[in-house]
């Protein structure tokens, strides 16, 4: 037995495992029921599965975990009792938030409320201090006053403290001094400083991010500590233990415990990282990732092997200003409900049947038709092979639900209704894909649709056809694709510093000086985490804008600008602006808003195994033939067993490919072939 990588992506229902033998490069997977009360129990259970096969735990050299502990605590309002310190006179920042309501239906909803504050006014204290927009201290920190304020907060039994002062991203001394005093008064209190969590201009977003961190930090720290103890107890002693973050990079256990907020939007990141790997192992460098599960669908764009990165995002209406993979989420999943009304209109979503009662065909009490019911009625799903046959689907219940709620009210037959519902949900998902692609001037004909998640490969073929995309890739293990991504990521830490300055007033040396400082932080943090200098890569970029513009463009740049570098930056910015927004203003002054540095600790890559043809014929992979409906016609479809599809084999649609936790549909007019990584590559029949 060789050395192993073990990864686990904890979901609401299942914890997905991937085990990679680094020497033989053999990959195995497992799904273990999740244990929401203590997710580490399921994790140990999954680790035990490997150990039970005779693997020495000491040979597990790499462990990476995608966790929703922070996300769930935030969504359920179960963070810790937190306090907040703001600059005196500025209690309004947090409560007002953005001031606006979300666009769309909520504008009309007079019962709409902003997300509740994680720290109420009664646990918010003020610091007598002020820093100017140039970083100058206008009012020095009144230490006596802040000490008294912190004592009051102590009396309110806070266990965590967020500090966010105006312009602290320029001059962090006051925040740091407040931490010192806070720890003198409350040695066990966790303290999150906005100047460390995200030293970035725009006070509300920085504050919100810092408060979320403070609210979750002790919970994640405790969880990681407990997990570390259990893993070490099980003999997994490697220091290479990582947690996935929202930026698509990993972080060590210790670093994650300090920056909990970076995990909150990490759920979809694993799948994107795995997709980036697909770019390296297939001829396709431009992908739209399409992850469709039970209630929602996440799409993201990968261009030239790299995903788009957003500089902030929202969860449940709360703002997080950290770099994260740009994902577009729509309410479309297997459980999405279809319904008609008295006016004869048919609507699909956004409501979902969820896990309980679930689709009608699950037989758990659901009576409303869902996407899964429609896929079953159309013959795309089989009754006997769901979850590898562990769960039988009730086709007549699905048909009855569709009949009663869609087909009869509209006066059409069941299959027509089912096909219509699927077309509608597909259009909604296609619109989500267009939103992230055509707007930036990308041409979808140059992109492959990479489908994963339980339901992605069912819908991808029809969507790629409708969107005129180059084709579809269905990876070997679409049901555990996020966990697969955890096998192949790097450690990534983001550093940012906002310094709003006209570009014309700066020299190359000025810019280099800021990056030098950030680089020092990045190198020392990565070295502390055990990375040798040669494994550390630093990627610099600048947030630039035309003077007075409301929004910045992130432009990659050299870590050290040579003479003439500023002139080139300027030209690059104009060009990038033109590319992104279609217009440019070469006569306008340009400003730097923020400096960004990403420190990457390269983890030695593990290559996924290539497979050799085993000489298994297509006929050997055929499990059955069943009828499925395509565009109004009922066609006989071969159903292949994925595990038996040999490398190099190819076939035409219509066809169904079943595997443990996923079904792929190859539509009429499409051609499928299995590549040497055992991906199914679907393209238009030539």
């Amino acid at each position, binding site marked *: 037995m060789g050395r192993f990588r073990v990864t686990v992506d904890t979901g609401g229902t299942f914890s997905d495992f991937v085990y990679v033998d680094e020497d033989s490069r053999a990959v195995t997977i497992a799904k273990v029921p999740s244990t929401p009360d203590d997710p580490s129990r399921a994790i140990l259970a999954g680790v035990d599965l490997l150990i039970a096969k005779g693997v020495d735990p000491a040979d597990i050299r790499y462990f990476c975990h995608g966790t929703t502990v922070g996300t769930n605590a935030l969504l359920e309002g179960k963070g810790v009792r937190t306090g907040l310190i703001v600059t005196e006179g*500025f*209690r*309004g*920042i947090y*409560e*007002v*938030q*953005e*001031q*606006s*309501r979300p*666009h*769309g*239906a*909520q*504008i*009309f*909803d*007079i*019962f*709409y*409320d902003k997300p509740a504050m994680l720290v*109420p*006014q*009664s646990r918010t204290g003020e610091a007598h201090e002020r820093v*100017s*927009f140039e970083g100058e201290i206008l009012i020095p920190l009144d230490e006596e006053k802040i000490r008294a304020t912190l004592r009051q907060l102590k009396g309110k039994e806070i266990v965590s403290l967020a500090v966010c002062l*105006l312009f602290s991203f320029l001059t962090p001394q006051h925040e740091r001094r407040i931490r010192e005093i806070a720890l003198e008064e409350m040695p066990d209190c966790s303290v999150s400083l906005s100047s460390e969590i995200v030293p970035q*201009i*725009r006070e*509300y*977003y920085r504050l919100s991010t810092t408060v979320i961190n403070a609210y979750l930090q002790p919970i994640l720290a405790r969880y990681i500590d407990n997990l570390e103890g259990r893993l070490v107890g099980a003999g997994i002693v490697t220091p290479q233990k990582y947690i996935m973050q929202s930026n698509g990079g990993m972080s060590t256990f210790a670093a994650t415990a300090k920056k909990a907020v970076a995990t909150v939007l990490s759920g979809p990141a694993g799948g994107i990282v795995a997709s980036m790997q697909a770019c390296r192992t297939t001829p396709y460098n431009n992908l739209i990732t399409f992850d469709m599960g039970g209630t929602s669908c996440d799409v993201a764009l990968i261009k030239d092997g790299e995903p788009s990165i957003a500089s902030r995002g929202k969860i449940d209406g709360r703002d997080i200003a950290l770099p994260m993979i740009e994902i577009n989420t729509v309410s479309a999943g297997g459980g999405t409900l279809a319904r*008609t009304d008295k*006016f*004869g*209109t*048919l609507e699909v979503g956004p409501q979902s049947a969820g896990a309980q009662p679930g689709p009608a065909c699950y037989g758990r009490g659901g009576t409303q038709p869902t996407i899964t019911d429609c896929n079953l009625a159309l013959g795309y799903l089989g009754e006997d092979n769901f979850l590898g046959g562990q769960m039988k689907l009730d086709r007549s219940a699905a048909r009855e639900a569709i009949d009663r709620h869609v087909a009869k009210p509209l*006066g*059409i037959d069941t299959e*027509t*209704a089912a096909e*219509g*519902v699927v077309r*509608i949900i597909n*259009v*909604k998902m296609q*619109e989500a894909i*267009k*939103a992230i692609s055509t707007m930036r001037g990308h041409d979808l004909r140059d992109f492959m649709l990479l489908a994963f998640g339980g339901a992605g490969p069912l819908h991808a073929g029809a969507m790629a056809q409708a969107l005129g995309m180059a084709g579809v890739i269905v990876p070997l293990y679409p049901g555990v694709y996020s966990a697969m991504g955890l096998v192949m990521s790097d450690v990534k830490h983001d550093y940012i510093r906002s310094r709003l300055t006209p570009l014309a007033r700066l020299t190359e040396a000025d810019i280099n000086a800021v990056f030098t400082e950030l680089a020092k932080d990045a190198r020392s943090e990565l070295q502390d985490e055990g990375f040798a200098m040669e494994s550390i890569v630093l990627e610099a970029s600048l947030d630039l804008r035309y*003077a*007075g*513009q*409301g*929004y910045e463009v992130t432009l990659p740049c050299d870590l050290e600008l040579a003479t003439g570098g500023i002139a080139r930056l300027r030209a690059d910015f104009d060009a990038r602006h033109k590319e*992104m*927004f*279609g*217009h440019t*203003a070469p006569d*306008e002054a340009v400003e730097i808003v923020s400096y960004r540095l990403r420190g990457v600790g390269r983890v030695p890559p593990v290559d996924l195994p290539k497979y050799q043809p085993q000489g298994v014929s297509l006929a050997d992979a055929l499990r059955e033939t069943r009828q499925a409906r395509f565009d109004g016609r009922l066609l006989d479809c071969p159903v292949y067993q994925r595990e038996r599809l040999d490398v190099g084999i190819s076939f035409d649609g219509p066809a169904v490919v079943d595997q443990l936790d996923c079904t792929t549909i190859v539509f009429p007019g499409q051609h499928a072939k299995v590549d040497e990584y055992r991906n199914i590559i679907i393209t238009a029949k030539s």
Partner: protein
Amino acid sequence: MAEAQTKAPVDAIELEIMRASLEGIVLEMQNSLFRTGYSTIVRESQDASCAIMNAKGEVVAQHVVLPLHIGSFPACCNAVLEAYAGDIQEGDAWLINHPYQGGSPHAPDMAVITPAFFDGELIGFCASIAHKSDIGGPVPGSCSGQAREVFNEGLHLPAVRYQRGYQRNLEIERIIAANSRTPELVLGDIRGQLGSARLGEERLLELTKKFGRARTLSYFARLLELAETRMRAAIATWNDGRYEAERFVDDDGIEAGKPVRIHVVVEKKGDNITFDFSGSADQTRGPANIRPPVIRGACSYCLIALADPNTFVNSGLMNAFNIVVREGSVMNPRFPAPVNTYNPTVHALVEALFAALTDIVPQKARADGCGSRSIILGGRSTNTGKGYVQYEILGGGAGARATKDGMSGSSINQSNAKIAPIEIIESEFATRVQRFELIPDSGGAGQFRGGLGIRREYINLADARFSIRSTKHVIAPNGLRGGGKGRTGDITINPGREDEKHLPTRYADYPLKGNDTFRLDTPGGGGLGDAAKRDPASVLRDIEEGYVTPERALSDYKVVLRQSDKGYDIDEAATAKLRGAN
């Protein structure tokens, strides 16, 4: 017969596909505009919205950012259709910002409209309306509270052709540039709008190609029809009757101390509803007037809020109700009456409508709120010599609702701007914010408390010209069902200094000196229900959070408090006695 049977079902499926596609297209247009817009107003405050219209200029799809624009788009588009009938070609684009010869609420709201042709036939329009930072006139930001005619409100473009054959008319750009204090921002935003409309046009043609022209147009018609049908069905469930309400705007900016009456009579019978505004004040000399397209937008807003926030939002809604406006009144002024500060009037109108309908749809009752306001500082940058406009839109307390408190520090009703970040303002403009807090006791008392207003206090670091367009500095937001009024707003120059001075609700061009301070207090929302019925535990929590003072807890809420080592607790016996005595 058989054909008729199969036609309907295909309709339901394809119609929903059409609707989802149109929603996707307008959202894409909107995202494009927010991304490519140049000014802070478009990109940070997001004061801009997009729509797709049919060939008659009726809105078929709109991603709702600003609800009033549903009335403005058709009016703007009709102006184009009238002015250019017979001469509309592929590759054209128009600009229009005229409140009388179009539908813009005021001149800064510039519409960019492009036609969509399929096989040589006009099938519709793509458009956006976005607020411009400055379009000329006597004051920075173009909105003078003392304007006496639209001629004091900046450059007005009736429908004018901005592009032919996809080529921009540079003369028009030069005229606009010469009339704006911030020409780069205005032209940058207009080009962003143009890009967004062209994107919509391209997507709309793809969609038409997929469904064919005839079916596409029949689905457009069906979507309009359904919006009306659904709204009428909701209206039919409400009690028939005649309902009446009025609200007042502080003044018109010219005749100080003379409130402007907004009055509505609602006649509701079956699935018909009429809003008669004839009883409203005569048109004002100052810029408090609003035009019928804005009124139709405001009525649609109220009906959607009361019927179903998730209903189909398109022009069909506007066929579900009638409005009556008297010519020469504040709701239908004669040209060239000024209109730039339209928003306070619209808030009064919306609140009058909610008040009139409160007994019809009691479960959605809500007290009055803060209205909306903007402050505008303008000058020339000492660094660059360039003109600048610092423009901020501020909310306040929302009214208490039938089942819960009002939101604090929020934009309300048809207004929905984001607040400008302090760190950005201070970095860009010669100003420093000294205070940004909620105002205790500003929410009207009630079983459900009104939301709190906010206080922003600034010190000015260089001379600047200051304008404010606010509301409810004199007339407080009303409570409902016995709830108390919200606190009024206020604008004070140099508070606490010898030269302290209060400005009127709407005021243009006050010369601020370096080192002057100004303090803006925004109104709180009205309360709902008897304050003495508010759960004492909620009152105690409000005290702990600093929302209500102990004095007001006693006087308004009849809650008797005892000082304890940790703050306050409730003297339940004394409270019960006091409340019982009332």
